[in-house]
């Protein structure tokens, strides 16, 4: 078992999920609380990464963030190295790739909060930050949990973006899904089975956790 890759996948998923939460909570709140037609465009853009095949997304990022664009050169100047083939590069790719999986549950959760409560809070003088932290998040905890788990798992299972952007470097970009692919490609099916089992076990555990939480809450309310 490649524990280095296992640790790398967990680290990538944790960092990505943390960044995604910081982006997705305000974004979802904006989509739900805001007014104006342009918000539909924002929501569409936030869902777009689901449409593109991951390898295509990875290729675009490789070119867009590469040293041949001014943007890519800017990043390289700040980091001291180009973004591709590095852990940082994978984080950028993963955040874009998993964005819909963080935003969608939150938009659904925030939308289901009673608008009367939101209006009442507004009348009492709550600003947008207070609205989100005291009303939306506590009442949509389930959706928040769903957003966290889905972003995390989607990043653990990410393959196409990493294949295009990663360069298969142990400890930096060789994630568990790449190891699994390498094992299959080198005809090492026994090792591939172990890796796949580990990935599956991890996912079942996380999903069972989220569903047991939502179940308990449903039972408590009844």
């Amino acid at each position, binding site marked *: 078992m490649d524990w280095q890759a296992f640790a790398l996948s967990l680290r990538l998923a944790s960092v990505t999920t943390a960044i995604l939460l910081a982006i997705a909570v305000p974004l979802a709140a904006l989509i739900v609380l805001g007014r104006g037609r342009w918000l539909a465009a924002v929501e569409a853009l936030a869902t777009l990464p689901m449409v593109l095949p991951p390898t295509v997304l990875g290729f675009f990022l490789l070119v867009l963030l590469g040293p041949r664009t001014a943007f890519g050169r800017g990043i390289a100047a700040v980091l001291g190295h180009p973004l591709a083939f590095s852990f940082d590069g994978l984080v950028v790719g993963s955040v874009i790739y998993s964005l819909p999986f963080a935003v969608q549950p939150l938009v659904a959760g925030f939308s289901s909060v009673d608008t009367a409560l939101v209006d009442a809070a507004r009348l009492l003088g709550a600003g947008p930050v207070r609205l989100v932290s005291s009303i939306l998040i506590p009442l949509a905890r389930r959706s928040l949990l769903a957003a966290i788990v889905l972003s995390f798992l989607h990043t653990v299972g990410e393959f196409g973006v990493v*294949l295009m952007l990663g360069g*298969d470097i142990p400890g930096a970009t060789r994630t568990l899904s790449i190891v699994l692919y390498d094992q299959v*490609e080198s005809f090492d099916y026994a090792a591939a089975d172990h890796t796949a089992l580990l990935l599956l076990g991890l996912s079942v555990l996380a999903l069972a956790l989220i569903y047991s939480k939502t179940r308990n809450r449903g039972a408590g309310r009844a």
Partner: protein
Amino acid sequence: MSKQISGALFTLLFLAPLGAQAPLRVAAAADLEPVLPPILVQFEKSTGIHAEATYQSSATLTTQIENGAPFDIFLSADLGFPKRLIDAGLADSTTPVTYARGTLVLWERKDSRLPPPSLDLLRSPALKRLAIANPERAPYGRAAVAALQSLKLYGALKPRLITAENIAQAAQFVDSANADAGLISLTSALTPRLSAEGSYFVIPRDLYPPIEQGAVIVSKTRQRAAANKLLNFLLSPAIQAEFAKSGLTPVK
């Protein structure tokens, strides 16, 4: 009028596929992607057999054939993968037919700030990222590692190697300037795009074992005669001469 159109559409969608002969399915190593398409067109012109190729790393194609992919002929970038299929009873004959030899080159973009491609470039500490194909499964990747080992540079360069899924992706990593240089196939370096964007240096042949590219006919094929025709076509003097122009070394 509209009836005619819908009739034509009906024929096109449902009847035409029945009449058409199933194409000859070719599993081809990634280094053949720039070489094979015009050759398959010529093949169809001279024999009337329509062939369609799928390009992947030789290992990926081997896995696919092992698991029942409907290919008729396999053009590998080495002899090991076709042998593997023969040993498993999945390919005809007892030895793969060598149809060409591959050439490894060091390729670099013309706008690179590093020195032009040469063995000195490989020794330069300014070379931060060198792209190679995966040595576990791509024959050119294996040759790249062997060449670096012969030069006693493998240890020093190992942390700076960027491993691509196949030889085409290795070229793409350098072309997009994400890697400084790459050890790729001469067939890629000679494509119009890469020859316009960069320059190459042929890695001396005594530095790596020859990249013998072998072909086998997949045992499950229903088009053995057509597959054999394609194999003989590839070995014909005209096509061997064409190989030479596109960066493969003829075997005949």
